């Protein structure tokens, strides 16, 4: 590692005038309102939700008027709840298959193919992929619902070939929401990887080519290590986005049938708002935040590792 940036900057800074320091402080001024707003609208609800998870606060009944402090009762209840473990498992499957495997791998593959294809093909493919991403979530969710439902597009297409389709949302709820999330989210990974791949120095690749490295060898030993930082960042972002997916699932299957697609955000919503048990719902939401933090920590380490 070279001399850290901060040291060389620091020596310049010492020489700079007080006026310069003041100017730097002033530069922070414009972001103060947004930091305050983030504090009020993001941090405060998270803190309230965390606090509520230790109480029995409810939408109605005596607990709505005078919530009682429960300690860890809500968390203990998860251990005896039959739906909660299933829900954790479904969340892990949803994130692993739709984000880490689906969006990430497909996004990388499309980005790689685009670097090799002609400009027209690349921009056409890019437009098609990005189209699903720019749709508002509720619109994308309805589109996916309309595609997979009993009288939907998929069954009409199958009908043209004389194949009688089933009700996909009912028969394969997890598969449909995973596919919908891959369809919707791949564009993000593709864009990240397009940008990352354009940073890969051509001469390194060419040198490897001279040394007789095959295509997959160049990908595995040259390209991927160079864009490792981008991969980690992308994984972190899509994992957190996918953990929080609610609208898509709610519109398509509402967590059903018989809880077969109830991921943690859906379960938290059902407990807090359908059953009015805000305390338990926020406890589930807190677990979701914890899972997100664990993933986040792992990826941050990956990014650090990639930089050193």
């Amino acid at each position, binding site marked *: 590692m070279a001399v850290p940036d901060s040291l060389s900057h620091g020596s310049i800074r010492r020489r700079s005038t007080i006026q310069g320091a003041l100017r730097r402080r002033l*530069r922070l001024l*414009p*972001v103060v*309102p*947004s930091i305050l*707003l983030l504090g009020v609208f993001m941090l405060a609800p998270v803190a309230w939700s965390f606090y509520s998870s230790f109480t029995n606060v*409810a*939408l*109605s*009944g*005596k*607990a*709505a*008027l005078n919530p009682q402090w429960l300690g860890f009762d809500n968390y203990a*209840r998860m251990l*005896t*709840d*039959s739906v909660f473990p299933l829900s954790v498992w479904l969340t892990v499957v949803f994130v692993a298959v739709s984000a880490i495997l689906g969006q990430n791998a497909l996004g990388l593959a499309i980005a790689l193919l685009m670097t090799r294809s002609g400009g027209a093909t690349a921009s056409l493919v890019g437009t098609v992929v990005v189209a699903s991403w720019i749709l508002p979530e509720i619109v994308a969710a309805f589109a996916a619902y309309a595609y997979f439902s*009993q009288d939907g597009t998929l069954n009409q297409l199958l009908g043209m070939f004389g194949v009688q389709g089933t*009700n996909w*949302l*009912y*028969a394969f709820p997890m598969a449909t929401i995973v596919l919908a999330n891959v369809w919707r989210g791949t564009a993000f990974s593709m864009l990240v990887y397009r940008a990352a791949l354009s940073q890969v120095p051509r001469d390194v690749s060419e040198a490897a080519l001279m040394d007789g490295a095959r295509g997959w060898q160049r990908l595995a030993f040259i390209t991927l290590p160079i864009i490792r930082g981008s991969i980690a960042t992308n994984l972190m972002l899509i994992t957190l986005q996918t953990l929080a997916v609610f609208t898509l699932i709610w519109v398509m299957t*509402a967590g*059903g*049938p*018989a*809880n077969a697609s109830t991921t943690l955000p859906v379960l938290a919503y059902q407990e807090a*708002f*359908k*059953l*009015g*048990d805000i305390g338990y719902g926020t406890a589930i939401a807190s677990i979701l935040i914890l899972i997100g933090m664990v993933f986040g920590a792992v990826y941050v380490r990956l990014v650090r590792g990639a930089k050193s």
Partner: protein
Amino acid sequence: MRRPVRIGAALLVAAGLLASAACSAQPQAIGKTVKIVYQKTDSFTALDKVFQDAKQEFEAANAGVTVDLEPIQASDDDYGTKLALAQRSPDTAPDVFYEDTFKVRSDVDAGYLLKLDSQLAAWDEWSKFNESAKAAGRSDDGSIYAVPLGTDTRAIWYNKKVLQKAGIPLPWQPKTWDDILAAARKMKAADPSVIPFSMYAGTGTGEGTVMQSFYELLYGTGSSLYSESDKKWVVGSKGFTDSLQFLKTLYDEKLSVTPADALDSNVWKKVFGQWLPQGKMGATVEGSYAPSFWQKGGSYEWAGYAQDMGVAKFPTQFGQDPGGVSMSGGWTLAVGAKTKSPDLAFKFLTTAVNKKNALAFDINNSQIAVRTDVASDPGYLGANPFVKDVSDLVAVTHYRPATADYPKISLAVQQATEAVITGKQSPAEAAAEYDASVKNLVGDAKTMQK
């Protein structure tokens, strides 16, 4: 060049956020305002009409007062959630609102409803409400917190043409559950494309699943959900398993809609809008308000419903006494506990439930009248051919146990039906899981074997 751009962008974002925060601030009221919150959907506009009329009437009689109508467009479940959320803060709490009877007690506990005893004592029309209906707004402390708008019952609604085609003599009145199955099998044999006898199941239809299906079965076995005398929830009853078994038979033999259709929260729209009018469904269990969808101005207008449809009492399991089962619910109007002008709010409430408005609501929404002067009005009696049939069911009707725990228990019942019709669990397994969840929800001490 880059830095000014970045600072500019940050400023823009900050300004945007500030602007959006400023927009959400409440506009200052000029004079006095009464805020009314109620439900309105594309198939439920009867109440909206009543409130529009009441607003005009009330504003004309009370100069300087503005009535602020805030309809919520949502299903029954979501309406309840949004209303409860609004009531958590005095800034958003309504002055007068539309409240489901089964939530009254729980919301009184939550401190959302204003006690109306003193206002009602001074209101001369309160004596026009029948006594059993008044109980809908009474809380555990004996005080009245809500004024009923109307009530309802549930019955079997059948399409005469479909039954005729299967050779079933009319008028049809099944005496036992087996009579229902026998008739349904006949209809299926006569025309395999019809849905012979559909009953709701699963969590998709929410309270509809229990009110218009499961409770008709359960209360006809001699069992019940809750023992009012012991104040305990019933677990481990044979009636519960038998009821699940009956649903399983309907769904397994394809006498009902497909499980996939049953789980769609909009399935009732197809029942009222397509299947029954088009003669694709033999019969179903639905509320006394069914004609409100088909009559003129309803969301699924069907001129022939008066001739083609018939009503039958839902039978008990083996025909035991009292020979039929029905369930009743209904909605009320209540005054918010956090209202700044309780007298004005109550005055508006009385305008909305006066004879003229109550009559219009009961006719347009096919409700069973709770005001004696409306019940004897020729306009009400002649509103549709089924008024007498469904009103008679009050004799065999049951009410939900409206405790604060009820919504969770109801969901556990819905989940049990869903597990059975999707084949995930056998009736015995689903009943055992229901028992376990009830004990988990309310504690062992509040359950009993029966």
